């Protein structure tokens, strides 16, 4: 049973059915990154999916932007407890990027410029659940928010939506990525409050 905090009324009462447990609403767009924001020139940008056979599927910026894109309206939830509802993104569905990829592995390590990694089950990337996003609110994605392109996996805590993503590597087993080695949950479902180990 929780103790009561004398005089705390909860003046704002940020509660809606769209808000996962333990989250609060923000109108801002906070930034969480482990280090400096990398500067990435789209002329040198490349995104690659690698499988256990050694096969790789790569797109440069022009090839990536030539793929069909989708407008994504979604809520996002950060493990540091802010949620932002009704955000608007444009990106390429991972279903599109995985169309030609053949793998028997069930897990994926996402890699980013700057060395960040995060682990994901493949099924969480497919069937309309994940995108490589390059626009936010109709504008090019700012570098501090992961531009030129980042993962967008809104049904998981937002650290899974790796900024500055540049590749996915298929994995046989679920191995921890960067934050997952540094105290955060391996899967990260906000509705189950899977925040920490």
């Amino acid at each position, binding site marked *: 049973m929780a103790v*009561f905090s004398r005089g705390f009324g909860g003046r704002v009462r940020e509660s809606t059915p769209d808000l996962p447990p333990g989250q609060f609403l923000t109108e801002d*767009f906070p930034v969480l990154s482990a280090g400096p924001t990398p500067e990435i020139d789209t002329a040198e940008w490349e995104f690659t999916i690698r499988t256990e056979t050694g096969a790789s599927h790569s797109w440069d910026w022009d090839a990536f932007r030539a793929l069909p894109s989708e407008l994504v309206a979604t809520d996002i939830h950060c493990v540091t407890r802010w949620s932002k509802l009704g955000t608007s993104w444009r990106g390429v569905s991972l279903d599109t990027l995985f169309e030609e990829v053949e793998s028997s592995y069930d897990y994926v390590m996402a890699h980013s410029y700057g060395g960040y990694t995060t682990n994901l089950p493949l099924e969480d990337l497919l069937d309309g659940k994940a995108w490589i996003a390059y626009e936010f609110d109709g504008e090019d994605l700012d570098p501090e928010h992961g531009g030129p392109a980042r993962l967008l996996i809104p049904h998981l805590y937002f650290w899974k939506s790796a900024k500055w993503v540049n590749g996915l590597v298929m994995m046989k087993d679920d191995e921890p990525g960067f934050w997952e080695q540094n105290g955060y949950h391996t899967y990260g479902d906000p509705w189950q409050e899977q925040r*920490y180990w």
Partner: protein
Amino acid sequence: MTDWLVGTVTDVRTETPTGRSLTITVDGWPGNLAGQHLDLRLTAPDGYQAVRSYSIASVGDGPAVQLAVDKITTGEVSPYLVDDVLPGDQLEVRGPLGRWFVWTPEDTRPIQLIAGGSGIVPLIAMARAHAASGSIVPFRLLYSVRSPQDRFFADEIAALESDLFRVDYVYTRSAPEGWATPPGRVTPERISAATIPVSETPGVFVCGPTGFVETVARALVDLGHEPQSVKTERFGGS
């Protein structure tokens, strides 16, 4: 994951016009490393709860945990912690959390700390850990605040200052009488002049509002610091 622990506020101190530090005694607190944070939970009489994450200013074994909080007037937790909470009041905490933005005495690199406003909190924990450990690696702090009265832990920082802990301030709105540099934001030039040079390959910890951290981290990389040697923690929107 540890459970929520009951904490009793045992000391409150006004630090700045909008911020104060709180000491919370938490039975069962497992101790924490310098730079870690915790989750803090408040419960209203009708059961409504609000949770926020805060960096920890204290370091080492419990049971006393110190936080410092800057009031966000539109928020629902920070105004309570800054304006309302009194010694004897109870709340709950969970942690410590985070294993990335931490310093331990095993790290033998020179360390540059760069704080903006209440971003000093995890960095004062590192300075305290450095002093307490007897580590002989050099530390240096660059602390950016609006004005002299906006410094958190000003007296303690002055007391910690030594050959092994050099301190420089940047005042962005108003500087003390006779201050050599006119008020202004941190610039690459100021950072270059008042931090450990790249040639000494320091580890760098930067904490503050998003815009501040973006500016500082970019300047550090432009000065030649390896991005991997610069650890950042940002708060607030952009």
